[in-house]
């Protein structure tokens, strides 16, 4: 036992030093800094909950929170439904399905900021190809990124496009974990394929679904890169998210305490969502 303690120190030290310094430490420190007034150069003063008070009174904060909420409400259900559909399709015995799967994942491995650049060009108002097709179809052109009404949904589409492949892989793994006999037995017992899918496959996919929802949510709350190159929060504040508001507060206005308060809020949101999703999906399975 004692020998193992010493060995453990040897094996853990390199990772733990980096982990505590650059991950665990900062995660905890963020909460403490959010209780202070600090502009990096000057002194730190403890101000209690003042930053949160300012935050809740700020119109920008609510805009950012609502925009982040809008993104989640659009992206999460779309990702769950579409990636499940993709997984079911690519789980069929089709020729070239391996290649098809591989292609579907490609958007996920591209630099998100660069994905934004590529879509910028598609969404271009005057010379974008999407508007060209719309015009050809006899429809009105859309100001994808320059119209307040459409900017948020346009970016959401890019996010969905990027994350579908990743979540499809999760669902595929889930599908392949379900023993085929279960499905076949149900069909033999007279269930239609659709019934078997609804009554057997879907319930057994619940753990994966809960994972996909949680991950999509985390991913949506943290989106920043694509927005930075596509609209930078605009037009107006119509695509400004919490992460962007935090970035501006901390690194443009140098208000570390206030920025950390926003960061802490993001943490709270993520933790709450995690527990809610888990509660909803786990209890029904057990």
């Amino acid at each position, binding site marked *: 036992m004692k020998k193992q303690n010493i060995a*453990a120190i040897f094996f853990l030290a390199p990772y733990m030093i980096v982990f505590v310094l650059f991950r665990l430490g900062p995660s905890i420190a963020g909460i403490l800094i959010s209780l202070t007034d600090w502009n990096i150069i000057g002194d730190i003063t403890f101000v209690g909950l003042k930053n949160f008070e300012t935050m809740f009174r700020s119109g920008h904060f609510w805009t950012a929170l609502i925009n982040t909420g809008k993104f989640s409400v659009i992206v999460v259900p779309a990702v769950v439904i579409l990636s499940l559909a993709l997984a079911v399709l690519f789980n069929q015995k089709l020729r070239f399905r391996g290649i098809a799967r591989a292609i579907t*994942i490609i958007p996920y491995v591209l630099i998100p900021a660069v994905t934004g650049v590529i879509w910028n060009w598609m969404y271009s108002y005057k010379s974008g190809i999407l508007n060209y097709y719309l015009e050809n179809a006899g429809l009105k052109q859309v100001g994808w990124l320059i119209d307040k009404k459409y900017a948020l949904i346009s970016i959401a589409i890019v996010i969905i496009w990027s994350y579908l492949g990743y979540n499809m892989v999760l669902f595929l793994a889930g599908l392949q974990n379900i023993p085929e006999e279960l499905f076949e037995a149900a069909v033999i017992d007279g269930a239609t394929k659709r019934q078997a899918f609804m009554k057997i496959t879907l319930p057994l996919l619940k753990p994966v679904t809960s994972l996909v929802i949680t991950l999509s949510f985390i991913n949506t709350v943290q989106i920043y890169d694509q927005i930075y190159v596509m609209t930078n929060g605009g037009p107006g504040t119509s695509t400004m998210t919490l992460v962007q508001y935090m970035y501006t507060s901390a690194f443009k206005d140098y208000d570390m305490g206030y920025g950390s308060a926003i960061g802490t809020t993001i943490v709270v949101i993520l933790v709450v969502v995690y527990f809610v999703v888990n509660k909803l999906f786990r209890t029904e399975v057990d």
Partner: protein
Amino acid sequence: MRKYFRKILLYFCMVFILLIFMFPLAWAVVCSFKSELEIIKWPPTWIPEQFTLENYQYMLEHYPFVRWSINSMIVSISATVLILLFSSMASYAFARLNFVGKKIIYSSIIAMLLLPIQAYVIPLFLVVNKLGMRDTLSSLVLIPVANVTSVYILTNFYKTLPRELEEAARIDGCSYFGIYWRIDLPLSKASLSSVAILSFISTWNSFLWPMITLRTDKWKPLSVGVASYVGSFLNSNGFQYGPSLAAACMAILPTLIAYLLLQKNFVQGISNTGIKG
């Protein structure tokens, strides 16, 4: 007959989906080879009337694109190597050794799975600033090393290895390090490849952190370099699409190649994070 119809429908769906997925990329690649005049021409053309490399040339001549690529390479490769070493060592300890505080330490790591860097980036910046590492490549290398997914994947894998192997080796007088180095590491090649490709791609693609820590243009990785080029023109009239598309095409090529080469491991890596969770 009905079965036949169904098959055709499925293939039709497949082709349609693939078109949607490939469309933006294909369009960007095509346009990156057009002259600026042709790019904004109406109606747009799918085959460049005049195939030109001028956008690539412009980008390479006017911006430190090569330097950015080298930075991205250095950072992603070093981070990946360190992640493989540090995470596999830590995972070995979590899977195989009994030590004081194991549960608490491991839980504190797993809890961090939930928090993306956006949630703790401000204090992280303050730590890095205090250590005098701000605006250096090493700050780009070390932050991904504190990654949690790799420890999670590898610990789960090492737990599946039969204990008998290890016990036999212990009887033969093998040290813990010997077991880790000569038995567990070689056996976990597939998992290590998964971790490697996931780490490489996520480091290559990272954006927010490099953007916060870096001030000097010549240390920028590709993601920030390309984005700052585009960002500096956002909502202004002088923006040229051609060079930005050429830059985009060049910037995504390395991860694309890495992904295509290690595709199986990449997919396996994603599935591994899911199944046991």
